[in-house]
């Protein structure tokens, strides 16, 4: 393993001293509140199988330095893809033009890089350490297992992708943090056919954990079984009813409800600008007393976890809603400063080429006291949704949607039959006030979430127990 403290010193075309002297010329005006340089080198590798063949394999090298200057509400941002002191100083100079006033203040200082305080992911047993045929073999196994599950499977598409990201964050307050961040993601997607009825099923998983665990024979078998089971269930699915009805959400990934319905609305930038449906509502009741919701970037090995955020702030566990009362927002450094509070370690960016914004990490509803079976049994007429595709929210009006990929019609507490995928729509500020029961079975998703905001994608996680929500609008065709 390379010494990550020295990683960028070895790559920047000359010594730390010459970078230091190049930066010394970029004196920051006194109107500057914050400035940073974000060095990134990311190696990605990906494989995919379809039609029974691993036809695609590839690598992707992405590297650059993002320079950012923050002055009040203003942000200047530029980046370079060359690790040369001259180019880096030029990017900083370009970003600096946002700040008013003469450049008589302090120069950006480079101190000796330090490692983050906590360590949530492994640095050995990563996918990159394996020979290429091993990784291809994993996808061949997936293809075979899925086809063995059922003769109705007519297509198997699976992918394995992983990245090894090394970052160095140099802040104008003198802090320098380095981190090496692994991420692995697998996906199995099958098409099952019966006559002219064609349906899909999928299962994805991964995280910032050691590779052996992610691709163990048990894990592969479980993934294939789940993907095929879902496709076969969907072959039996009938048209979904439409209208307003009560819904039980299964544990895990359906936590995307939290992400869309309230998570985005609690991000610091929207609340500082007063454009969120949750603006100015700290201390008010926004959910039923059964709901306590946190954002936790410190869960070991999770897809949404980070040792430090992309501004070098250690991640933390932030209480957003406690027993139904709104307690806090998610902050990066700029929005925290403007709102007179501290960063919650939620300043994130897609890459060196993108500026920082407040973003979620792992957003989780804590378990309640109801037996999950009782939650389902309490449903008089409605939908039991156990799996979802993606979701979206309008943070200003609060309206959010998410789409079911596996769901059942329920009457008098009994599952009657599966229903076809449909969209659910609700109103973020009041949906959680309609949570009637919360199960004991909180589980985190399997490591599949990618959140998009303002054109930037970052990996996230969610967690949810079985819950019952009354009066959601179900977008079926019947």
């Amino acid at each position, binding site marked *: 393993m390379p010494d990550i403290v020295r990683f960028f010193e070895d790559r920047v075309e000359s010594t730390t001293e010459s970078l230091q002297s190049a930066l010394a010329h970029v004196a920051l005006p006194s109107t500057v509140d914050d400035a940073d340089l974000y060095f990134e080198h990311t190696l990605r590798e990906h494989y995919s199988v379809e*039609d029974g063949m*691993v*036809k*695609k*394999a*590839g*690598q*992707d*090298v*992405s*590297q*650059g330095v993002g320079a950012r200057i923050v002055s009040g509400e*203003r*942000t*200047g*941002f*530029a980046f*370079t*893809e*060359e690790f040369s002191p001259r180019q880096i100083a030029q*990017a900083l100079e370009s*970003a600096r*033009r946002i700040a008013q006033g003469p450049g008589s203040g302090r120069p950006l200082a480079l101190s000796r890089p330090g490692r983050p305080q906590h360590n949530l992911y492994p640095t050995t047993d990563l996918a990159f350490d394996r020979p*290429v*045929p091993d990784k*291809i073999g994993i996808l061949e196994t997936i293809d075979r297992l899925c086809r063995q599950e059922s003769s109705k499977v007519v*297509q198997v598409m699976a992918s394995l992708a992983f990245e090894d990201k090394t970052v160095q964050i140099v802040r104008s307050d003198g802090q320098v943090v380095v981190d090496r961040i692994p991420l692995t993601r697998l996906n199995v997607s099958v098409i099952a*056919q019966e006559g002219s009825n*064609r*349906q*899909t099923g999928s299962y994805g998983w991964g995280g910032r954990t050691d590779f052996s665990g992610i691709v163990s024979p048990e894990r592969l078998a479980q993934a294939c079984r789940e993907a095929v089971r879902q496709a076969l269930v969907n072959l039996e699915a009938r048209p*979904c009813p*439409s*209208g*307003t009805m009560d819904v039980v959400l299964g544990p895990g990934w359906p936590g995307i409800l939290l992400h869309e319905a309230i998570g985005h609305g609690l991000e610091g930038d929207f609340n500082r*600008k*007063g*454009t969120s*449906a949750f603006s100015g509502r700290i201390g008010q009741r926004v959910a039923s007393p059964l709901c306590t919701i946190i954002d936790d970037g410190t869960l070991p090995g999770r897809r949404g976890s980070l040792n430090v955020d992309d501004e070098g702030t250690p991640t933390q566990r932030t209480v957003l809603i406690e027993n139904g009362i709104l307690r806090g927002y998610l902050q990066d450094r700029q929005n925290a400063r403007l709102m007179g509070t501290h960063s919650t370690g939620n300043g994130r960016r897609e890459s060196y*080429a993108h500026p920082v914004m407040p973003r979620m990490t792992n957003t989780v509803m804590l378990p309640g006291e109801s037996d999950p079976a009782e939650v389902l049994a309490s449903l008089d007429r409605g939908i039991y949704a156990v799996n979802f*595709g993606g*979701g*979206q*929210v309008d943070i200003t*009006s609060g*309206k*959010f*949607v998410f*789409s079911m990929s596996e769901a059942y019609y329920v009457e008098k507490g009994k599952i009657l039959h599966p229903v*076809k*995928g*449909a*969209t659910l*729509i*609700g109103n973020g500020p009041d949906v959680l006030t309609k949570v009637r029961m919360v199960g004991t079975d909180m589980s985190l998703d399997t490591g599949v979430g990618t959140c998009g905001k303002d054109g930037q994608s970052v990996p996230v996680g969610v967690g949810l127990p079985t819950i019952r929500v009354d009066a959601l*609008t*179900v*977008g*079926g*065709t019947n």
Partner: protein
Amino acid sequence: MNVVPSQNLPSKSFEDGEEAIRFILEAARSAGATSADALFISGVEETVGVRKGEIEKVQAAQSRGIGIRVFAGTRQSSVATRDLSPDHLRTLVARAVAMAQHTAEDPYAGLPDRILPPAIDPAKLFPEESHSPSRDELVERALATEKAALSYDPRITNSEGAECSRSHSHIVFGNSLGFLHGYRKSSYALSCSVIATSGDQMERDYWYVTGPLWEKTSDAEGIGKKAASRTVRRLGARRIKTGSYPVIFDPETARSLIGHFAGAVSGSALYRNATYLKGREGTPVMNACMTLREDPFLPGAPGSRPFDGEGLPTRKKTLVDEGVLQTFLFDTYSARKLGRQSTANAVRSLGDGPGVGISNLIVVPGTSSLEDLMKKAGKGLLVTELIGFGVSTVTGDYSRGAFGYWFEDGAILHPVSEITLAGTLDEVYQNIVDRGSDLEIRSSINSPSLLVEGLRIAGD
């Protein structure tokens, strides 16, 4: 491989796309590749954002990257990088060739059978620019836009700001059959998003323009006013009763509806068994009033291009003629796999090998105004915004969140929110009974308003 190696090897990073590609193709040959192709993209971008009359952000970007695909016989692999130094490129290409030894033999994989010149002189697709704006001009235009929006109506109470940007990119593609061509294009954009309040209801909407010339953004005041009027008219939204109603998709939402069709006619989806349109060539897939054309030569349109992602000359085609599906879209791979010819619909990005995609799609407009369409429908919903991902081109199921306006007798009565639309893509396309005259080329997919009969709406 018959590529001439470049003469003067620079020791520093490549700036010139053609030179970089020649070097890569030669490096691939040396490393044992039987054939290869490479895509070079470089770009300069500048974006300014203003909010409440002040500059909020200034972003400058200069980037370039290369995507490379190598073949070892019928096995392949691909690599991409932002580091264009010769040493790194040589190492990476060698790694790609080594990786390709392990992928599956695929008899259909490979470059196109032969090379042909680009279909059109790129200069005819992308107009010559008479003026490239300074940063101050971008700021001025964004400020003027936001100002017009904020002063439009007292109910406009907040702003997400206005943004103005310019980008200039250079795209070069080459392969070991000897194809090596490039083109440059510019894009300017101006957008504005504001917030209107009434009681405890808050609504946000936006408007934007984008195009190949700076002049496209000249009506700053008009764009600001349109953003504001779109926002204010959302206030007072309520739900409607669950039921089946006529629905008019406005040009923005019609674009998204037609976009799903572009995914379903892909040859890749066809050989994967992943489209509900399988087996439907030559049969009606839309109402007889619908004709859909692809035009890669629309001057200045965002999808215009002289050659596709594999270097094949692009061409115009009719996808749907009076409702009947004329052809699927193919790249070289999906065509070979199905015993067809490429339709020059390969699209290529740095990180991934070719896939199937469209250049510019146009729904041929009709003669009805929006008011005519509303009158024809009687009463129903005019949809102006769709959210969510509830669309499957495999099953054809369609279910999305929507915002719009309830109309009766040709007049809008009130805004409608927190509802969903659902059906199947097949039914929706077959039930498009009329289309408006309001076609405007704003994007790579372009449609007039479309009137769909009897769509399921879930509400109260």
